[in-house]
């Protein structure tokens, strides 16, 4: 299978203005005999919102685990802001904001202490950090819940705290692994539109994994991942056109069921 590494949307951008901040090539990872990822490669530039679209078990979470340094790939390279996660993990991680699929808030402590914990781990402290915590929580409308225990927040609010927290150290790259799982439609929409706002405002590179086609439609680029392989990488329109489908949903279904049969 050919691995596509660049989509047309990327080529349309000027490389000088928008260097690739996340650069992956030939990435493979197996769990025993099962290949979770097989020769995956793509690049994401600043100011680009990329949806990683794949059904459950496609390898999305494995990819996020490799990108966040929790796992090490069997083969391939993974560069974050120019730093190889294998050899320069500390510098690479400093440039990442991560929202994990699994909840990672400490429910026993306050929202503020959750934020502080993260800020301190990222080398922040003092008044500057407090101000930024206030800002980021304000942006997600949670400034008045600061001192509350995280346990008291709803699922959507917890996700917003996690997003605010991931942004606290102003990373140029934001990784979100199925961030809308378990959220109600309104919370899903709010989260997505806030992230789209951030993209323009902070010129961030955003990788958003999902199995929901309507979320992927909003992206600048869609990468279709299935059984550890990249099937398509391009604008939502080009993916639809290439698959000869009437919309992204049909294209996604055709691509992923076809590959399963092959």
């Amino acid at each position, binding site marked *: 299978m050919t691995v596509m590494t660049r989509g047309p949307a990327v080529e349309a951008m000027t490389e000088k203005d928008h260097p690739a901040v996340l650069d992956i090539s030939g990435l493979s990872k197996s769990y025993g005999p099962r290949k979770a990822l097989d020769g995956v490669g793509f690049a994401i530039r600043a100011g680009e919102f990329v949806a990683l679209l794949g059904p459950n078990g496609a390898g999305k979470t*494995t990819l996020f685990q490799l990108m966040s340094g*929790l*796992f090490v790939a069997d083969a391939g390279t993974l560069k974050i802001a120019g730093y190889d996660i294998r050899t320069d993990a500390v510098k690479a991680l400093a440039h990442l904001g991560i929202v994990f699929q699994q909840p990672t808030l400490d429910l026993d402590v306050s929202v503020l202490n959750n934020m502080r914990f993260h800020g301190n781990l990222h*080398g922040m*402290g003092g008044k500057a950090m407090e101000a930024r915590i206030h800002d980021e929580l304000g942006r997600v409308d949670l400034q008045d819940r600061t001192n509350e225990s995280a346990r008291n927040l709803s699922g959507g609010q917890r996700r917003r705290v996690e997003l605010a927290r991931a942004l606290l150290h102003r990373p140029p790259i934001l990784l979100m692994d199925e961030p809308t799982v378990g959220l109600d439609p309104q919370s899903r929409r709010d989260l997505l539109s806030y992230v789209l706002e951030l993209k323009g405002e902070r010129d961030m590179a955003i990788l958003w994994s999902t199995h929901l086609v309507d979320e992927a439609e909003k992206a600048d680029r869609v990468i279709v991942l299935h059984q550890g392989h990249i099937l398509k990488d391009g604008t939502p329109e080009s993916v639809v056109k290439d698959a000869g489908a009437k919309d992204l949903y049909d294209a996604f279904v055709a691509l992923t069921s076809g590959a399963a049969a092959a």
Partner: protein
Amino acid sequence: MQTSHAINALKAVTRREIIKFSQQRGRLISAFVRPALWLFVFAAGVGSVTGVDPGMYHPYPVQNVPYEEYIIPGLLGMVLLFSGMQSSLSMVYDREMGVMRLLLTAPLPRWYLLTAKLISGTILSVIQAYVFLVICVPVITTYVHINTPMIGFLYALPAVILTGLMLGAMGLLLSVYIKQLENFAGTMNFVIFPMFFISSALYPLWRLEERGVYIVYWLANVNPFTYGVELIRYATFGQFNLTAAVVVTGCVIGFLVIAIMGYDPQRGLIRRGPRPA
């Protein structure tokens, strides 16, 4: 790694441990009640039946030290042992709750993050050990004559810290291998109780040798916990037990290094499956 960054991170990890500890009232109370029961109930019972005569046992300056006095270093060790295991439990809990991912994706070397975790756990351990001393020793002295000088408990501080580090590092190491919270209680039964009972915490080891209980004697002699207790026991009399210090220091380093290797994603001891950290 910048120093200020490292210090901020250590503070954050420690503050979190302390906040969480202070919220768990049961843990706070049991940390104190457990050794107090041993001291006031067990020691009174066993002491009155058998009496422990350490003979010319070092470091005691006299014969026939009260049993209550004999087991104080052992009970300090017990507080540190339980606390070390509790840190291990909190690592496993954090892993299940996802907080561990946050820690392991922080832009700091992993060895430093794990060492910070160990230091913060040890701070909690030492606080608990001294809370026990401050409350229980004055009570004991109202009805038993204690040979240990009060300043001795201050001399013991470095020994208490070192032993706390050893048991905390052991907890860290165990957390590598304990995959799920449910497995924790079982593991604890196979770690805490044998370590505590097969050691010099409750009886002098020469007694075992004298009575010919060689297997227990031999096991107690290879139990690192024995050396932690003896290091503390000698320190309370202002004496330095070199063998114990070497063994305990060696164990701190050994346990920590193996734990760090266990948490290394390159080696991936903790996560062979597709759901890590």
